[in-house]
């Protein structure tokens, strides 16, 4: 199984150098080859398990409670403006 590293890196928003792409292509292909093993098992009649202890639909009352102040929430941001996070533009003007 070959993996298109450039495409996947783009989907994952991970900028990679050419050297990295080459290295990862080999390493990831060997892992993917290993996991192919699962095809040996017939799972056509097997349910999926995503929660192991059997809890379902855990809900709580939708009540407002104290949370971080605006100042605290912004504390770790490198770039802010008027008490808001400043983000790179995603749409052209």
């Amino acid at each position: 199984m070959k993996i298109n590293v450039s495409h996947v890196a783009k989907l994952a928003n991970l900028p990679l150098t050419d050297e990295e792409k080459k290295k990862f292509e080999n390493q990831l292909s060997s892992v993917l080859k290993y996991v192919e093993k699962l095809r040996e098992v017939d799972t056509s009649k097997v349910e999926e398990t995503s929660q192991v202890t059997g809890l379902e639909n855990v809900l709580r009352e939708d009540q407002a409670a104290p949370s971080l102040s605006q100042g605290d929430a912004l504390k770790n941001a490198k770039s802010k403006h008027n008490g808001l996070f400043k983000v790179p533009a995603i749409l052209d003007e």
Partner: protein
Amino acid sequence: MLGIIHLGGVLDRTPRKNVMKLNELTITQAREGLQQKKFSSVELTKACLDRIKQVDGKINAFVTVTEEEALEHAKHADKLLNNITIEQYNNYPLLGIPIGLKDMYMTKGIRTTAASKVLENYIPQYDATVVTKLKNAGAIIIGKTNCDAWAHGSSGENSDFGPTKNPWNIEYVPGGSSSGSAAAIAADMCIASTGTDTGGSIRLPANFCNVVGLKPTYGRVSRYGIIAMASSLDSIGHFTKTVEDCALILNITAGNDSCDATTPKKNKPDYTESLKKSVNGLKIGIPKEYFEIGLDKEIKEKTLKAAQILESLGAKTVEASLPHTEYALACYYIIVPSEISSNLARYDGIRYGMERTNFGDEAKRRIMLGTYTLSAGYYDAYYKKAMQIRTLLKQDFDRAFEKVDVIISPVSPTPPWKLGEKVNDPLKMYLSDIYTITINLVGIPGLCVPIGFTKNELPLGMQILGPHFSEETLFQIGNAFEEVTKNEGWRKKKPVL
């Protein structure tokens, strides 16, 4: 004489002669000494800080040492110790006791890095639920421990702050990902420490460092405020020097948390109660698939010997079978990267942290693998398939536990390996998790206890596994084994640093 205390015959668990350094004490011993005013929390904390200064240059167990805050809190603890009754003291099971926190645990006002450059300057605005609970119990946070970045790894070498070394032989890995927390206990730099276990990250380093490590049942301990790796597997546990200490900490950390919907509103027993119970009549399963090819001969012998020792105490061992074992690793390395790629998507360098170029190789590999297996057209073939295999693995254990109370198995197929030995071969590194990952996929608890050393003087442990929420039974067996072997020569060893 600061830092050294004569404990006389008061503490019968003392493994060595009468002179013991404060930083070498267990929680139980430290509590007794603090209560009887044999030493203060400031003295105890200083002994740990001194030890860190003395040996951590070689080991690299800590990313951040919070000396000032720790000493301040120790002073406060001493004041409290002088002013409370014994009944009140019992409300503070860790009062004045210095502990280390894996740097995956968010600590308000203290830098939390996940050992990654991405979070190099990140200072959390709140504490993880477990951190709040430990603080409320009176614990002194002495520092944040090193680990594989984002808890991705089996050796501790993936840290962006340099690898942690094994205190028993600094040419060897301490096991990962909670490398610093295990090494810190082995080298007596603190009294207890915390970890996270998504595929063996507590049990593997406990096993390689001769300390006790617990991976609780999934959901037993809140994950809130702990940096997420793979959300359907992450378990929050800890490292201690004895099984008794391990039970004591679970008493503090376990329980429902409204901030983590996977923590059931289930009664929490007093985990120290089961310690004294006899193991007579308990049934121990030995899973045949775990003792087949690929397992180091010495580990096989030592693990089976440990089971025999438990038999001599009245437990019965029977063969068990976990037929889907050979598919567990492949299942794990689909589910985990998938969940990682989703959890690490939030690190965009905008609200906090640095840009995504700062991820290390292993995080990049897992993000890409997960992005690939979850991408359009591949979901059914990979993620869905793995979730179905997960059901089969769970059924294996359900069936096994119909016949036995617990299962005993090796933790790693090999003893600790040398630094650098597997760093360029990710698949080879992943194979060292073969006995630990299934436990996370199935969500059951696992307790790792030391069982001795190899011919090359490297530590070995075993894991005791039980059904969901059976931690009491694990402690019962772990403690019985510890008690019956307490006078063996290897129990008295200390790393030479």
